């Protein structure tokens, strides 16, 4: 079993002040507008669910620093290990001259994740890159 831990980092300069961004990250009706339906509360230990059309994510608030940072678990529990994901999502807000630098880091693993997935055996890896390109063009924001 390979439980390699990996990270995803997405950063963006947002032309709005941290206080306003914080509201969008922590008020349920606003979170629903850009992320998913939810019962979030900015309280350490609060358990909530993010619900999308494709399924739901179980979350647990880990840290809250108003206007600065927010961390919660992001566990997508699925019977098929290929979809199962255990991770932690951290948002960090840094004021800039014209707005805020928003940084999202997601760290985690799939319990049954396999390195290279045995693809080399079939000489398939180069084609996989093409396929990812196709998928990137098709996916309009939904995590599968």
């Amino acid at each position, binding site marked *: 079993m390979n439980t390699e831990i990996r990270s995803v980092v997405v950063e963006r300069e947002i032309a709005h002040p941290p206080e306003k961004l914080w509201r*969008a990250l922590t008020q349920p009706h606003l979170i629903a507008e850009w992320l998913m339906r939810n019962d979030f509360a900015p309280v350490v230990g609060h358990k909530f669910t993010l619900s999308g059309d494709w399924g739901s994510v179980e979350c647990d608030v880990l840290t809250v620093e108003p206007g600065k940072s927010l961390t919660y678990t992001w566990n997508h529990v699925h019977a098929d290990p290929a979809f199962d994901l255990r991770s932690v999502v951290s948002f960090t807000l840094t004021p800039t001259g014209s707005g805020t630098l928003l940084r999202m880091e997601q760290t985690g693993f799939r319990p*049954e994740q396999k390195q290279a997935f*045995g693809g080399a055996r079939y*000489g398939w890896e180069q084609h996989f890159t093409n396929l990812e390109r196709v*998928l990137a063009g098709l996916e309009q924001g939904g*995590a599968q």
Partner: protein
Amino acid sequence: MTEPHDILFRTLADPTRRALFERLCREGEKTVGALTAQAGVSQPVVSKHLGLLKQAGLVRDRHEGRQTHYSAQLGALAPLVDWTSQMTRFWEARFDDLENLLRRMDQ
């Protein structure tokens, strides 16, 4: 444990099958006839490959009159796709929506 991956790799290792699958991904649902027209192989060969793609869960068929329509099942690829690239695309798209929301919000 490795069987689902093995089936996907074996199925997509064949260039004709891969081309059929990628075409269905890009262009959406197609009939066997439409796929044959550009596949460079005969209709029975195309049908055989579509059958194998179907067995692997990569395509779905839908019968309408005498025609069979095939479409790609992207979910079947999930075991092969690194979750980090999926999530990167997910967050990029979510941040787009976040910026749209912020523009609509009061100061």
